């Protein structure tokens, strides 16, 4: 029988549930920054990742739950070795990210548009930002590779 290398077990995920209230965004930010730093990202990158998760959580509160404060948001942090993953999960209305208009800063000024900035930030900061429906749940998955360059 051939010897087998010991299987490296993935670190367990940290799963947190918060009420759908904007007052919890500061906690989300602090927690994300701490988890990102623990995963090995420098403070500057950890700050950006915290902002991306803040924006994703804000989107859930404002759009999926339409401001209702009595719902629940699940955050799942995973350090998968080469990449850091955060899932933001809700049971509100599915928002198709393809319907969110992309940011054109000149048009923002002339048309007084203020929406879409959060999605734009998330896409700039993360390596990937995907949305899927899983049963009754909406799952936003944010991924940052540890070898990727910081956001421009």
């Amino acid at each position, binding site marked *: 029988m051939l010897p087998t290398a010991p299987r490296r077990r993935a670190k367990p995920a940290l799963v947190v549930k918060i009420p759908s209230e*904007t*007052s919890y*965004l*500061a906690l989300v*930010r602090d927690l994300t920054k701490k988890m990102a730093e623990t995963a090995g990202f420098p403070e*500057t990158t950890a*700050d*950006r990742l915290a*902002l991306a998760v*803040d*924006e994703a959580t*804000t989107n859930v*509160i*404002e759009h999926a739950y339409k401001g209702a404060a009595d719902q629940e948001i699940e955050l799942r942090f995973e350090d998968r070795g080469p990449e850091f993953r955060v899932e933001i999960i809700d049971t509100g209305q599915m928002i198709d990210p393809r319907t969110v208009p992309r*940011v054109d*800063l000149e048009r*923002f*000024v*002339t048309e*007084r*548009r*203020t*929406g879409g*900035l*959060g999605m*734009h*930030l998330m896409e*700039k*900061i993360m390596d990937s930002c995907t949305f899927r429906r899983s049963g009754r749940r909406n799952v936003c998955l944010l991924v940052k590779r540890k070898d990727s360059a910081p*956001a*421009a």
Partner: protein
Amino acid sequence: MSDLTVDTRDVEDVTVLYPRGFINAHTVRGFDTAIQKAVARRRFRIVVNCEGLTYIASAGLGAMMGAIEEIRASGGDLRMASLNETVHNIFEILGFNHLYKTFPSEAEAIASFREGGQAAS
């Protein structure tokens, strides 16, 4: 301690806003109100002194975008001073450093209105 306070000070024809804390979807109303109050007083030359601002999310940037057209159409501008590294990075990521003039200090931002001056970055 409040998550965000915004003090206001008039320096001749320039109004300086001092956000202290952080601006996100939870606290943005205080920042938006401070900008709107200045505009309502027809104070269109505005400097946001970011020395006490720890970070700003898109909600805060949206508040600035919502007011900038009226401010500029009225002959004024909204200029930024003393951005820390975190806030400066967010500006760069979004390209806001091309939309808003930023200065190392409040004094330089105020002086720029006198000189029609160029931004430092």
